[in-house]
């Protein structure tokens, strides 16, 4: 699947649908300024003065200790806050340059797709095809176009063969692909995935991450991946945003971020990064900060195989 093919897909509805939110193409995909939120009945802010931007086509990992505000931030991005969760929302949030204030969750869903941790929470129809179609039907997309989009979404996620299966007949990885297809059919420019592989075995998790990475590279889909397990995902990301106590604590490329401050916040750095940190303390002459086994292996071979 190439970008051209993606562009060749029907766009009439897309442009019609996006009129209200269309901004300059150079504007960031997501821009948050001093964003804060306090849930009703809770006396402290769940997120506090959050500032960040994500450029179009970027692949960003959002991480941080349990309870740091990641989920709350995601709920702001897809409109569940303030539409479904009551509380005090302050600051500014722009998607493609347009303020999301007053936008419905349904409207936002055509710009930002959301994939949950457990695909079982997202799938409920009697067949994969019906599930992929569900969101489109809710948006009232004309039948012809809906069919084209469904075919396309199943194709890019590799589940066309499974169209007539019931979700409960699928493996965990196939279910997660179906959930991603349902989101892609809405043709969002941005996709947010909340620990999409945590229920999957490691092989299947790798396969799903590869699908996500391919969608990012080939379709230019802006990707925000919420993850704790940095061992498996770091290689895919352009940037890591670390939250701590409701604020953005660190923001930058993985090899720069995976250092002492991140260790102190208590995020689980990749094992190879931790190993190299310890090796340096022991006086082993390794100077790089690897984030993958391949990088670590190259560095060690330079020391031991020359």
């Amino acid at each position, binding site marked *: 699947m190439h970008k051209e093919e993606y562009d060749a897909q029907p766009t009439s509805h897309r442009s019609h649908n996006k009129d209200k939110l269309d901004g300059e193409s150079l504007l960031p995909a997501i821009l948050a300024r001093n964003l804060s939120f306090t849930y009703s009945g809770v006396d402290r802010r769940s997120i506090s003065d959050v500032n960040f931007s994500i450029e179009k086509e970027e692949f960003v990992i959002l991480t941080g200790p349990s309870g740091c505000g990641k989920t709350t931030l995601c709920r702001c991005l897809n409109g569940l806050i303030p539409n479904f969760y009551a509380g005090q929302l302050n600051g500014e949030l722009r998607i493609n340059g347009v303020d999301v204030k007053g936008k419905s969750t349904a409207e936002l869903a055509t710009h930002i797709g959301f994939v949950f941790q457990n695909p079982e929470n997202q799938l409920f129809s009697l067949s994969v095809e019906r599930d992929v179609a569900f969101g489109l039907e809710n948006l009232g997309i004309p039948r012809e176009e809906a069919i084209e989009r469904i075919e396309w979404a199943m194709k890019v996620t590799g589940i066309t063969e499974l169209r007539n299966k019931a979700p409960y007949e699928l493996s965990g990885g196939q279910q997660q692909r179906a959930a991603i297809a349902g989101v892609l059919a809405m043709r969002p420019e941005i996709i947010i995935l909340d620990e999409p592989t945590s229920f999957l075995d490691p092989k299947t998790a790798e396969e799903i991450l590869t699908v996500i990475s391919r969608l990012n590279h080939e379709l230019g889909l802006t990707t925000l991946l919420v993850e704790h397990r940095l*061992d498996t995902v770091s290689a895919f990301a352009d940037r890591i945003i670390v939250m701590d106590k409701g604020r953005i604590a660190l923001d930058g490329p993985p090899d720069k971020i995976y250092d002492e401050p991140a260790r102190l916040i208590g995020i*689980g750095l990749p*094992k190879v990064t931790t*190993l190299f940190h310890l090796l340096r303390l022991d006086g082993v002459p390794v100077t790089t900060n690897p984030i993958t*086994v391949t990088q670590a*292996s190259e560095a060690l071979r330079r020391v031991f195989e020359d």
Partner: protein
Amino acid sequence: MISVENVSFHYPGSSEILHRITLKIGDGEFVAIMGENGAGKTTLVKLFNGLLKPDRGTVSVDNVNNKDRSVAELSKQVGLIFQNPDHQLFAETVAEELRFSLKNFGFQGPVVENRVTAILTSLDIEKYANSSPFMLSGGERKRVALASILVWDPKHVIMDEPTIGQDYLQKDRLRNFIVQLVSQNKTVVIVTHDVEFVAECKPRVVLMSKGKIIADGPAESILTDEAAVEEASLVLPQMSQLVESVRTFRAPHNIIDVYSARKFIGDALKERTRRTE
């Protein structure tokens, strides 16, 4: 002791999911059951506390056949913490959730409050005692579900995917907590996909694939068995991948965690320096 002998099981209307499984887990053992999605791991542990009954074969806990005991009786011995905490939590506050568990098992008086406080503190959720479980983050809710089982002090503790949604520090805390349980001669069984967590804890690993046990032994030998790991849809631990990738290392095949890798590489460097001098 949990003993599974020649057990087969199928859910109504579907094909057999466990095929003639035999497994013995002794008191004070720490076991990780691993394997691909759909391998039958969760089904197997649901047999331990009698939630499911085998089609064939026997499951017994402390030498009593499970078919001679009710799930309520068994639950007191075998605490099962579900994968999804929301299948387990319902009370209005975290403390109430735990009190409910205790009262259900006939605990009364000051012992109830003492136990609630002790377990909340040890899992770092005491500050949420009076909050609704549903206002907590996913990782925190998971710890409340764990607390609501541990509070009645079952002898055998089964945790289905306990590390999902837990950050690094919480995993570390969980690991210490498991060590503590095991030192009290409790059986701890975890069902998990988290290879790196298992590589750090080094429990006995039971590897399942397609309803069968395909390997059983110490983490160091099972997680480095490439064929078995491949069959069970796992990946080798990062440290094992790394030391295997450097040819001159001739590394022993049992390095799976950061600390043994650090020691091995440090020693290799000393050896190399000694030789070049």
